[in-house]
């Protein structure tokens, strides 16, 4: 029913991902051509905008990939346990709000204290945001797909309220918060570029998650619950309710951290439209990675490059940046179709 990482070999998911990217590129180019655009020109602008120079690569593509890697990891972990967390977007906003509040309120703390405090509070806020749908699923049996989506809208509107009301900048002109204290800002990772240490945090988390899902008891419980909750409960004597709840909270925490890292590393303030839908793009990131936490690094980079390139495509080739949504949808559908074809082939 669900795409799950193949445990037979590492090569197969990679092949699926490459084939999915190829299909997406061909179909996407065809659609552009139908829309009256020149696919070659589009590809050129995309390439230039994403990896055209060292500066664009580090300051734009890598920076944009950080929230995608983190939310992609959040979605991958949840999906592995069979938790349909479509709520990374709202959890990200909850994290961004908390991070901004802490960065503004405790601005006099030294960086060594304030940065961890900002990041931890954003994770806790993301987990708290996930707690509502998690408890509704485990206690009341309400499916999390709808509840996480509803929580997204609450989170987006809450952030909008904050920057128009309680957290609006002191000048009271723009719908944004004041900038957080210098001490709450993530260090630069590369001198002379906008790349911040949040990138390193994202990579580290992916590696840790990849190890934990493979080599810890809890990781095994997550995979078992995702493969078959019934079997996990009856044959494996796993407390699947607890596994689902914990995975939900961890997923929410990682998505919340994405919001905290974005505030602490890039924007330094809360904005109304902080996220262009990273929490939804995250689903494409996670699926293309075969739900593998390590693979999320690569697919997060790919979609970061796509988003960076799309901005250039709009600017230089006049192609609306909204095409990114079409490309994301094509990618997801291609992965689903290829996964299906693979399973048909493997059937005895």
């Amino acid at each position, binding site marked *: *029913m669900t795409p799950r990482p193949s445990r037979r070999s590492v090569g197969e998911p990679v092949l699926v991902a490459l084939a999915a990217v190829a299909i997406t590129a061909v179909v996407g180019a065809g659609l552009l051509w139908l829309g009256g655009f020149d696919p070659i020109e589009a590809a050129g602008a995309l390439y230039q905008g994403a990896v055209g120079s060292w500066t664009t690569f580090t300051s734009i593509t890598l920076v944009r990939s950080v929230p995608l890697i983190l939310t992609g990891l959040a979605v991958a972990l949840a999906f592995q346990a069979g938790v349909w967390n479509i709520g990374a977007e709202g959890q990200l906003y909850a994290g961004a709000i908390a991070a901004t509040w802490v960065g503004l309120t405790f601005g006099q703390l030294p960086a060594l204290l304030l940065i961890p405090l900002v990041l931890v509070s954003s994770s806790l806020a993301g987990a708290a945001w996930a707690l509502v749908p998690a408890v509704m699923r485990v206690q009341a049996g309400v499916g999390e797909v709808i509840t996480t*989506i509803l929580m997204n809208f609450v989170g987006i*509107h809450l952030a909008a*309220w904050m920057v128009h009301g309680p957290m609006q900048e002191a000048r009271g002109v723009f719908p944004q918060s004041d900038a957080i204290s210098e001490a709450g800002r993530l260090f630069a990772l590369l001198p002379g570029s906008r790349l911040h240490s949040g990138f390193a945090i994202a990579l580290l988390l992916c590696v840790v998650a990849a190890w934990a899902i493979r080599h810890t008891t809890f990781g095994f419980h997550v995979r078992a619950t995702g493969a078959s909750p019934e079997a996990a409960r009856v044959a494996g004597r796993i407390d699947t309710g607890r596994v689902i709840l914990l995975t939900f909270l961890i997923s929410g925490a990682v998505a919340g951290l994405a919001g905290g890292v974005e505030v602490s590393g890039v924007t330094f303030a809360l904005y109304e439209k902080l996220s262009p839908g990273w929490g939804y793009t995250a689903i494409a990131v996670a699926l293309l990675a075969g739900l593998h936490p390590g693979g999320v690094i690569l697919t997060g980079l790919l979609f970061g490059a796509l988003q960076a390139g799309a901005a250039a495509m709009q600017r230089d080739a006049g*192609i609306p940046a909204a095409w990114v949504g079409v490309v994301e949808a094509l990618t997801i559908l291609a992965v*689903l179709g290829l996964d299906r074809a693979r399973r048909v082939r493997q059937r005895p």
Partner: protein
Amino acid sequence: MSYAEAVIFLEAAVRLGVPLALAALGEAIAERSGVINIGVEGSIIAGALGGALGALAFESAGLGVATGALSGLAVALVFVAFAIGLGVDQIITGTAITIGGLGITGAIYRAQFGVTGTELSLPTLSVVGIPGLDRIPLIGPALFDQAPTAYLAYVLAPLLWWYLYRTRSGLSLRAVGEEPDAARAAGIRVRRVRALATAFGGLLAGVAGAHLALAHTGTFAEGMSAGRGFIAIAVVVLGRWNPPLVLAAALFFGAASALQFFLQALGLDLPYQVFLMLPYILTLAALAGWVGRARAPAALALPWESDRTG
């Protein structure tokens, strides 16, 4: 609250509830056949753009509703091809359809009307009063002085109930949603029933989108569906997959959205964004309180396969 304010509130509740009711009625039929289509949001936004472009091209809001319905159907057919044709996961397919639907409508709109997006001025659906009924105090002007699409929702709710519970075809559809294997054994073509039910849902979601563009605002804006497809799915749960209850739940949600007019009339000075949050919070609360006693179709969201083509 004065009588005039009450009329304004109820009228707004119905006007905001109608697109939800249309989308949710279609989704209820799809879900009764065992298909959860999260892509209904994509069908709504496609219906809004298709409706806007159709109304412009034919200079008729009525034909705009027709093109909107077809646009919603087209998007739903992509979902059908993957989720029912290939039998891949419905939730993920639906999410992709929504992302893609929002993307392609935004791209088409900008390609047509410039990257900045000019304000469209569309022919609008005129309000049609039902003679006699619109004279009833309070509910007359609220319920029976609306765009024609509202009457479609009123008529469909009992009609679909009758279809589900009083016709052989409706029984087959419910059987497919509960026990697809048994239904197949009884000679029902499971995937065909599901495809048709989902297509019907897409058609109605398209009408809902056209209603947004042509009855609400007289314009199109990127992402103007604003999550209504997801709320429609929550409305189906609140309405317990039963069309008349689904209509009532949609109107409840419309009332929650219209609370802003009501509370502003009371002189309560809450920020605008709080009013935007309120309907979602109320829906969450309603889901938490209600669902424990409701039961979803047993085969909901489960792909079905057979050795034979069905």
